[in-house]
């Protein structure tokens, strides 16, 4: 079975078998990351470009290293968010990359739907590395990969996601992916940071962290950005932290062996306390390793098609 999609834009339309294929391929890639010679020939002769309109050292590096470990020619374009409005159009940039023989374009963009627009105009495979407040599918895949490594399965797990759901592409992709894999998702956010009609996506929503994490197998924090306060969504970071942060007290409501996760970078002491982030239960650092493995798997699967 081959991966069906030309692109990875969203986890909404990726089927269970495809997710399983990505996760198992990632599992076979992961040992390489702990080996002394991190080199395979999987992507020999392929060219991969990261096109980032937002700063994200973490995600960009993860893709870039994944490409290089597999011997691809990797290049990156860092455009500022302001160049979205002033510079060359996204379609033109995409066509240019296409003409240079790019096999995969990995795009991070501040506007939802931008990867979809790009994908319609290029032959290269497009990977959405985060679009606006919409999706970040590879983050959800690496989260699922990490959970599966520890829990052995995803079916029937309860995953609590705590924080700014409204502006979180991580939450949205995790909801779609985890549902496909049979897990249950509970969300907790101030009502000002919870999208409308969220429950119609099949999740449960809460305003008290204790209730959301009750019996959870996984507790995932989301990054809160300072500008959300400036926009008036909550009165202060101090109060946000007190009511919507993950701390040792509210984590007690989760299962004793619950995993603690965060997509990073963390605001320690705001959405998550350092005690929790650095606890035995935390797999936050491991998520980073999973990220490289999952991206290697995905690049391999997307470029293998048509060969």
């Amino acid at each position: 079975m081959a991966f069906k999609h030309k692109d990875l834009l969203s986890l909404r339309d990726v089927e269970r078998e495809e997710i399983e294929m990505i996760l198992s391929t990632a599992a076979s890639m992961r040992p390489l990351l702990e080996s002394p010679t991190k080199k395979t020939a999987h992507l020999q002769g392929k060219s991969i470009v990261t096109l980032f309109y937002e700063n994200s050292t973490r995600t960009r590096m993860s893709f870039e290293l994944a490409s290089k470990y597999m011997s691809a020619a990797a290049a990156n374009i860092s455009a500022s968010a302001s160049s979205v409005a002033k510079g060359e159009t996204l379609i033109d940039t995409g066509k240019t990359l296409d003409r240079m023989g790019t096999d995969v374009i990995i795009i991070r963009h501040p506007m939802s739907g931008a990867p979809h627009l790009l994908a319609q105009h290029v032959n290269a495979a497009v990977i959405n590395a985060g679009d606006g407040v919409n999706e970040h599918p590879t983050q959800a895949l690496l989260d699922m990969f990490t959970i599966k490594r520890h829990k052995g399965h995803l079916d029937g797990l309860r995953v609590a996601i705590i924080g700014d759901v409204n502006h979180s592409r991580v939450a949205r992709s995790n909801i779609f992916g985890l549902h496909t894999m049979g897990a249950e998702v509970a969300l907790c956010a101030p009502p000002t940071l919870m999208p409308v009609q969220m429950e119609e996506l099949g999740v449960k929503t809460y305003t008290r962290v204790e209730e959301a994490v009750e019996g959870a197998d996984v507790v995932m924090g989301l990054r809160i950005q300072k500008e959300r306060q400036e926009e008036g969504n909550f009165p202060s970071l101090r109060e946000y932290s007190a009511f919507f942060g993950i701390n040792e007290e509210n984590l007690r409501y989760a299962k004793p062996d619950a995993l603690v996760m965060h997509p990073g970078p963390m605001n320690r002491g705001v959405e998550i306390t350092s005690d929790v982030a650095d606890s035995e239960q935390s797999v936050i650092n491991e998520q980073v390793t999973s990220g490289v493995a999952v991206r290697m798997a995905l690049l391999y699967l997307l470029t293998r098609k048509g060969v």
Partner: protein
Amino acid sequence: MKLLVKGGTLPEYGRADMLVEDGVISRIEGNIECEGAQVVDAEGLYVMPGMVDLHCHLRDPGQEYKEDIVSGTRAAAAGGFTSVCCMANTTPVNDNAVVTSFIINKAKAEGSGVHVYPVGAVSKGLKGENMAEIGDMAKAGAVAISDDGKPVMNALLMRLAMEYGSAFGMTVFDHCEDSNLVNKGVMNEGYNSTLLGLRGTTRAAEEVQIARDIVLSETLNLPIHICHVSTKGGVELIRQAKKRGVKITAETAPHYLVGTDDLCASYDANTKVNPPMRLASDQEALIAGLCDGTIDAIATDHAPHHRDEKEVEYNMALSGISGFETAFALCVETLVHGHHMTMEDFVKVACTNPARIIKKNCGQLKPGMDADFILADPNEEWCIDARKFLSKGKNTPFHGRLVHGRVKETYVGGARIYKD
């Protein structure tokens, strides 16, 4: 100069002939013979007043790359419109008599023949601060005032413009959206915006502003016109206000009757419009509002944009739909073929009521009225093809849609200005 339209079906008259003399309808009877008259064969066609569009953007002066008065009026004629009211958000803004006169004169000199009635700005530069020269613009030929594209957020300015404008018979056409509540939304707020990760605009943004306008209108006992109503709640507010006798009129646009926010799933910016397309329940309420007289008129909000402004990220794309050339088919398809109203009822909301709102001698076929009319085939099947639009704006979310109802010929003052 005599014109005899023979064998068509007319609203109220049924199958009848219509004689036009010197640009005015002189007789409508079962069978007219008139020597020397030029005969128009309307056999099998519906003869109705030219449609009157209370709300469009002709982009001229200043944004001619999107549309100009020549292309815009040609597109209007092809769409079956014989009178159009163009909004003030041109460059420079139509906030003074010089711009108003420019538009009127250019339309007369270079336009397709469609009557162009400018709507002047409420505020200078559409800034929402100081009142524009409403009296001057009225004298030059403006038919109403509006800051369309933007709401009049300042309630005091709104009150003053309503009061001052009333001295010149100028009603405010308000684009109702509380801009604070819009809060950078780009589509309807609801399940789909949550699913797509696009920022939503709450329906409350529109309804709060409609409610405010109703209160002002009722308090001041002055008329108000609500532009492009898109929500069920908006319809209900207006319905209740009308029951109390508030001097309120309202319009909705074809795309709100036909499209929903489901269309946004493609992230195709041609679906981006302000206010946004909503839900099926809103469509039902808007149709009911048109049927019971709550919504007086259908107006296109024809908003042509260059493709460079649409082939971009959804958030960055400009809002608006090129609407002249699809309005008739979309409305007839939905309202008439959808069994909500007859062609006669459709004529009221597309022609008669809007003509009454701008106080023009058109919008009906009867002796003494200007001979602004169209021949249409309500049943002709065709496929919407944006590439064939006469408008420079090819931006429509309805490209490729199969529809029924086509404008065949358009006449202004008895002269043919368009033939399919």
